[in-house]
């Protein structure tokens, strides 16, 4: 493991037997796992390059148990790492050697479906897709659709503020969550928001969403559900240059059209996907756009005509329009299988997740090509073109000495480039441990201190998921001081704005 985690507390490790017994008293039976063999399944999440066996795994099934576990750990200075389905791509659920891994997998019940108020109240271990399935009979669905939706839990979605292909039009998790029940590290249980459109007081739901398990453990969530669009159709458009595809994306948005999804793939990604799923992708184009329009059929038909005209105006070299659900699904099949398809052409790959302003796409791709030559590693690009979220897949072979280090350096260069172009380090996968040490590329020490002070308001001892998100840990007391003397702040030489 090439990333530093907080040093293990030997005093805590020495008390392991006592801690396991105390947790068994709270969560009886199979809910506490302490054998090395059984804990193997929890050593890693979706970022499999990093592994760590936890001290012990606890799987509570009531809010009360969660509260008692956290209270016990709080009182005894024991670190806790929360985990949903373990599909994080940034290492958000990577265990700690001296930490309790708190799994929410037993919180699997949908508590209430309220069509009149258009909400679902659910436990956090329910999968993203299960929510949509539970309301599908009435024509509703839950809009955010991360590609792992068959497996990822809604609790994890809230922790990571997950996105998906459709968030250009329908928003990310934060735009679709109304309330939660949350247990603080102290064991205190709080309810925030509910079925109303907005909450009173500060927008705590907004800050909890995307906090990567550092502020509290969510035990219930209220999400908004929407009526499914009546129809959806897609266009598949090939371009001889990436620049022309980028221009097409800009003109569609400029024309006031917000597609349900707008995805781009570059040549290596097209070839890998086509070889895998045979979706009929054109192989001699440099960029392929898949543009989906959804809504009433009269609207979709009209928008398809407009987008077709724009694409032709941008010099498209191939253009197909779906005329059936089967055809639309075929267009998507290659895109949706892009990651495993790339997995077939390379022993290993790293998936990056920067976001850039849409207009900077050609520049970003040119830079990525330069990096590819510099590091002598291949790269395939898939891209949520509508919202500027780039997923370069860096190809490497972990069995060849030095390749993983080169791949990581390549990835870091891409993310720095995203920030330089006016973008950000992560669009939807989260910071976790993966991008933790790159945070200073985007934020100053002052920016990060403000974020950490907020963390202190929720978890003053820093026991919940430490080592994630922030490159350096500070004591809360030190962050909370206002250094003022004679009208001047201490350290006037530190740049402050």
């Amino acid at each position, binding site marked *: 493991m090439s990333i530093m985690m907080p040093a293990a507390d030997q005093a805590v490790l020495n008390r392991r037997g006592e801690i396991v017994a105390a947790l068994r008293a709270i969560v009886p039976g199979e809910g506490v796992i302490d054998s090395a063999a059984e804990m193997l399944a929890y050593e890693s999440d979706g970022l499999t390059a990093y592994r760590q066996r936890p001290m012990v795994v606890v799987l509570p099934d009531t809010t009360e148990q969660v509260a008692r576990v956290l209270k016990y750990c709080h009182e005894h200075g024991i670190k806790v790492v929360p985990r949903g389905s373990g599909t994080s791509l940034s290492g958000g659920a990577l265990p700690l050697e001296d930490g309790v891994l708190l799994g929410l997998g037993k919180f699997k019940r949908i508590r209430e479906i*309220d*069509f*009149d108020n258009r909400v679902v109240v659910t436990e956090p271990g329910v999968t993203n897709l299960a929510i949509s399935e539970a309301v599908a009979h009435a*024509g509703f669905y839950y809009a955010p659709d991360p590609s792992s939706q068959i497996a990822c839990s809604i609790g994890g979605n809230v922790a990571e503020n997950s996105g998906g292909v459709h*968030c*250009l039009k329908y928003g990310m998790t934060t735009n679709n969550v109304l309330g939660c029940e949350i247990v*603080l590290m102290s064991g*205190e249980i*709080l309810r925030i928001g*509910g079925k*109303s*459109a*907005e909450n*009173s*007081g*500060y*927008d*705590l739901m907004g*800050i909890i969403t995307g906090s990567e398990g550092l502020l509290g453990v969510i035990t219930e969530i209220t999400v908004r559900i929407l*009526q499914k*669009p009546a129809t959806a159709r897609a266009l598949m458009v090939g371009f001889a240059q990436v620049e022309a595809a980028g221009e097409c994306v*800009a003109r569609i948005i400029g024309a*006031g*059209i*917000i597609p349900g999804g707008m995805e781009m793939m570059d040549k290596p990604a097209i070839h890998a996907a086509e070889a895998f799923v045979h979706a009929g992708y054109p192989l001699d184009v440099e960029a392929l756009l898949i543009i989906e329009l959804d*809504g*009433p059929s*009269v*609207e979709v038909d*009209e928008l398809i005509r407009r987008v077709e005209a724009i694409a032709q105006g941008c010099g498209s070299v191939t253009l197909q329009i779906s005329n059936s659900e089967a055809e639309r699904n075929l267009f998507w099949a290659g895109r949706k299988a892009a990651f495993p398809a790339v997995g077939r052409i390379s022993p290993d790959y790293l998936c990056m997740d920067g*976001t850039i*302003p*849409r*207009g900077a796409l050609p520049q970003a791709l040119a830079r990525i090509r330069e990096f590819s030559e510099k590091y002598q590693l291949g790269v395939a690009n898939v891209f949520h073109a509508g919202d500027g*979220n780039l997923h370069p897949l860096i190809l490497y072979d972990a069995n060849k000495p030095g390749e993983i280090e080169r791949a990581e350096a390549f990835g870091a260069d891409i993310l720095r480039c995203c920030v330089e172009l*006016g*973008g*950000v*380090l*992560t669009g*939807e996968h989260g*910071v976790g441990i993966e991008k933790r040490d790159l945070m200073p590329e*985007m*934020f100053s020490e*002052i*920016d990060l*201190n*403000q974020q950490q*002070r*907020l963390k*202190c*308001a*929720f978890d003053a001892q820093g026991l919940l998921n430490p080592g994630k*998100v922030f490159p350096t840990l500070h004591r809360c007391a030190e962050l*909370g001081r*206002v250094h*003022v003397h004679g*009208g001047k*702040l201490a350290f006037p030489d530190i740049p*402050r704005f």
Partner: protein
Amino acid sequence: MRAAIAGEQPLEIVGHGSKRAIGHPMATNAVIDVSALNAVTSYEPHELIITVQAGAPLADVQSLIDARNQQFAFEPMDTSVLLGTPAIGTIGGMIGAGLAGPRRIKAGGVRDHLLGAHAVSGFGDGFKSGGKVVKNVTGYDLCKLLTGSWGTLAVMTEVTLKVMPKPEAERTLVLRALDDVTANKAMTAALCSPFDVSGAAHLPGSALRETAGSLASLAASGQSVTLVRIEGIAASAANRAASLSTTLSSYGTVEILEDGASLMVWTALGEVRPFAADGALGTWPVWRIVCPPATGGALGQALARETGGEIFYDWGGGLIWAALPPRPDAQAALLRSRVEAAGGHAMLLRATEEVRRNVNVFQPQPAGLAALGERVRNSFDPKTILNRGRMTRSKAA
């Protein structure tokens, strides 16, 4: 800021002062005026973003984006009609207040459109959060906290907001003479339909009676009106309006207002025109109640009956505007007990300074949540320099 922190001098943050009469009277005797921070840093219509300084006039920014056929999709509330102020305020005030209009049910609120911010905290530190792109999960989303914090956390200096294309066409379906509970059901049916409703409001006949302007023609018959808005490309808006009319036909005959007429109605509703400061109810205190939408009709009807007030509904019943006959306590205890029972919360948006001294303007929160909120505030402004006392009633008073 640093001088104020050193001198423990509390500051009131002021832009145009359009919303100074909202919140508790503050324990401040000095202002920090940000109205000179009024530049548009960059506007990129194709990126769907605009970056502006916090003191930029909202009206100017709206004209700028309107010229490119774009808008703030959440319909920022123009509070000037309700409060009787000359200006509609600044971008910073719009975010600090976090008050969104009728389209909130479809497009989200102010919080959903603030992508990034630069601000100065009560530590005297300039910090930033977020960025200039929509899809961003890098670090905590401090923008959410700044929205609706009424200037109690930080002084915003520059912000990046999402802009969206304006709809080509709009239609408003009008149903008449429904009681509040039935109207709530009709709005729920519309919002549960696949026709992508972007506004759903109900005005009892009595709330409309004294209203001038674009709502007056609707009021002519003395009956209540229930309004449902559809927006989009022309062919689609017309098509969906027709389909939805059929869906709602069991609630009565549906009339349809088109484009300009429809726009005027929703503008007036967003401004809370029925309770305008220069209107017949201009001296009554006004509550803004947010509740689970399907409970709104029964709640509003009970409130009107028990308080003797006038009410109307937006957000399909999820937002209730209530003007109550003047009383020293603005009938806060009665109103809040009913609202809380329905799972909602209430804010006293308009009242005299005297009333705002005596009544909790913002919904009091359970102890644990209030304590967390206070710790959060402390993490930005430990000496309570900024807008001291605006969100919490001082114990001394």
